[in-house]
């Protein structure tokens, strides 16, 4: 079983739609949960970051973590064409020799059309 599973899509939605992006993971040592956004031909940029189960909201974005199910989600409300990008989930342990190593999903390509 892969440590991180993420559906690569592509996902295409109309402007204004609610988008749901998901990842599952198998490593119980993962304690930090992140979503990165990567525009075409650019480097990934951190979008959301959390370390506990539950929801974290930032504007139109909500990150949800369910540690018991090893499942994380990113919701985008009122999606905009400028949200068109690849979204990568990422995970990190909180201790050990590989502290700092990020484990990425394969990314979900999202297109929001006007």
């Amino acid at each position, binding site marked *: 079983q892969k440590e991180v599973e993420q559906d*690569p899509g592509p996902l295409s939605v109309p402007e204004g739609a609610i988008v749901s992006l998901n990842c599952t993971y198998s490593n119980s040592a993962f304690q*930090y949960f992140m979503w990165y956004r*990567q525009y075409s*031909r*650019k*480097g*990934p*940029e*951190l979008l959301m*970051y959390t370390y506990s189960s539950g929801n974290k909201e930032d504007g139109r974005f909500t990150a949800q973590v369910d540690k018991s199910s090893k499942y994380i989600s990113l919701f985008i409300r009122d999606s905009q064409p400028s949200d068109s990008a*690849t979204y*990568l989930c990422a995970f*990190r342990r*909180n201790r050990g*020799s*590989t*502290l*700092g*190593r*990020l484990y*990425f999903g*394969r*990314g979900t*390509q999202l297109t929001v059309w006007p």
Partner: protein
Amino acid sequence: DTAVSQTPKYLVTQMGNDKSIKCEQNLGHDTMYWYKQDSKKFLKIMFSYNNKELIINETVPNRFSPKSPDKAHLNLHINSLELGDSAVYFCASSVERGDTQYFGPGTRLTVL
């Protein structure tokens, strides 16, 4: 006011050549990383340096050799390039190990 910069942005070269990619960060961070992103967008760590000391070295062929002359620079030298080395290579940095990582714009390497 570039945070993490990489040079060159594009690199096209023949199989068997040796090439280097340079990375610099002006954020004052202690930790730097090299990642490889393949054609399917899978991003995987290769190396990490903390204060010029190698702390993460994933299973990477020894044709790849990172070099950190100082805290602000982490260069990647690749010997005897192979077709499978074609990818986008990203440099990143963080304040310390375990902190938020900031990525550079990437270097697109094509080996012919």
